[in-house]
């Protein structure tokens, strides 16, 4: 079982998110996170899906997504060659004993304080999943009031784009 990130380009039509989500639930695959966003092309959205599974699950996820009419291109983000980022917003208790400890963590993790009150901080952190996980474990002794984080967004390094793969770039993923 391994975690992997899949990026897909979809026509931004009514119900496309349902179709993608429905494929996962119907075939018993789990989504760890899913983000949908606009792209450089009007009418086209990009979904970044993080999922966990074995090689069989990964291949089936890609091939079953490929069957959806509105999915234009699919790529498994190459682990070594991808830029993957998440955003974390975390609200922590403020106290005189813990103040310096929190400020140090904010500096070390290149995080920023976006709200400050006598009894609480709200901190924004961006980075790879593991960095966010580490930050949370560092500040958790201070008392986490609440937190939320986005799923991963990801692009490959270099000049290649997912757009180049529309309607099937790899033979095996070709439509129909």
């Amino acid at each position, binding site marked *: 079982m391994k975690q992997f990130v899949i990026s897909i380009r979809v026509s931004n039509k009514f119900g496309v998110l349902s179709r993608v989500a429905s494929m996962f639930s119907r075939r018993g695959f789990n989504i760890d996170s899913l983000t949908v966003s606009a792209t450089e092309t009007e009418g086209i959205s990009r979904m970044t899906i993080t999922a966990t599974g074995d090689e*069989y699950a990964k*291949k089936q996820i890609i091939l079953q997504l*490929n069957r959806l*009419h509105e999915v234009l291109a699919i790529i498994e983000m190459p682990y070594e060659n991808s830029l993957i980022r998440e955003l974390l917003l975390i609200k922590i208790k403020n106290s005189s004993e813990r103040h310096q400890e929190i400020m140090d963590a904010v500096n070390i993790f290149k995080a920023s304080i976006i709200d400050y009150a006598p009894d609480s901080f709200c901190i924004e952190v961006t980075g790879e999943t593991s960095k966010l996980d580490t930050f949370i474990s560092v500040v958790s002794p201070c008392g986490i009031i609440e937190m939320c984080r986005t799923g991963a967004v990801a692009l490959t390094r270099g000049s290649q784009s997912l757009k180049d793969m529309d309607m099937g770039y790899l*033979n095996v*993923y*070709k439509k*129909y």
Partner: protein
Amino acid sequence: MKLTGAQIIIETLIEQGCTTAFGYPGGAVLNIYDELYNNSDRIEHIITAHEQGAAHAADGYARATGKVGVVIATSGPGATNLVTGIATAQLDSVPLVAITGNVSTDLIGRDSFQEVDIMGITIPITKHNYFVKSVDELADTIREAFTIAKSGRPGPVLIDVPKDVQLALCEYNPQPVTTPYPMELAADYNIQAAAEIIGEARRPYIYCGGGVVIGEASKEVIALSEKIDAPVGCSMMGLSAIPRAHKNSLGMQGMHGTFAASRAMAEADVIVALGVRFSDRATGNKKKFASGARIIHIDIEPAELGKNIPAYLGIIADVKDAVARLTAAVKEKKNTEWRAKVEEFKARDVNPNFDPNDMRPFQIIDCVNKYTDIDTVIATDVGQHQMWTAQRYGFSTPRTFITSGGLGTMGYGMGAAIGSAVGTGKRTVLFTGDGSFGMNLNELATAVSFGVPVIVVIMNNGVLGMVRQWQSIFYQKHYSNTTLGRKTNFKMLAEAFGADGYECFTMEEFDTAFKTAYEKGMPAVIDCHIDMDEMVLPMTPPGGTVDQMIVKKKDINL
């Protein structure tokens, strides 16, 4: 020229080659039905007794003709009644376009009268579906739906059209019939690789599926089997592709397949799997399935390769083209030893005590077979009668076996038989059971109203035979809710519907009844009384292997 949405729907259906639609009117499709009224000379509409029957009829029409079936239903319950029919078509890759009305866009999302989110409901059971928000996109949406339905691996597409969109005006420009998306063709190196594997084979076996029927590749597959001297076993969906009388045909394989097909597949060293998806009903225990064989899997759907059974060589391709090129690439060979062994297996399928005068399932099927024509479409419902038909009937023409394989929909038969008879313009014989027939027998009314030549043969054992069989074998004969004890008189029922009715207790009576009904070519029901403990054998237990196959009743002390 400006047309209303409803007019555009009818014009586009006609433009895309639809001559017959099945359906049921209602509040949200009144405008469409008004246009059907105005255009009754250009497009025929068959109103069924229930929307489910209409969906199955469109499906049967598509399977028998290869054309796209069209079904129309109103919003809410009309739309949900299509669901079983759409799922049936999806599981068996049948090209279908379903058009549903919906409430006006200003009423959408307010739980209005007869409002249901049919697009959301059918996402997992359609190849694609649409909710049409504007009349501007209506014609192109219908065209795209036809294209998707018939491209690659076919499937059902649903289009939900709100009432105000049916009323709105829009410019309409006729277009030609759309062409399917181009098929993937096999790479030469894959054909070469497959030819080499087959060249090394000493015990080759061809596993032929529904894709061969849909892909119209029967001739090619037969030619391949002859050139490489390989026996051919079929999944149930592939049965009509290979003439049963052909020397290489082993009939159906799988849970209720012939001993010969199942044994030959288990002992093969190379399996050429064509247009199949290795369903659990066809493979049994996947881990132990044909463990000694190298599998060459050719299918048009990439997601099928390796989904159920890992392939040694998987090729995404149009099966007709790929098999033709493969046949050209392989060297002709003879596998004398292997074929002798297969002949021994075949002998195990012959019942030496067979008496054609016994009123039993195979005898009934043989009798039908004696009178039917080479291209007569045989439809079934789901259960024991379906398996007996698959095992016994001598199919010889593609698209002549119409049955719900993937979903296993009891109640499928009546609608499907009507659709196939309408599509082919010829008599269709429906084998059904008293259980399945009870589910949608209301469609007898449709057959009578439209004079559709459907001859219904009920294998009436008074029980839900297939479930009873499992209860006999696996549930200590606890016949929970399978002994129906109904008092229905099917002969009188048929007559009440305006059809001919026959009741038979002997083969002599059946022979006369079927001959009369078939020659008359009008809707008829023949009620055949058979024993409730008839079983479908051979049987490989679910998840079992060929070694656990039950061939005779005495194997399980029954």
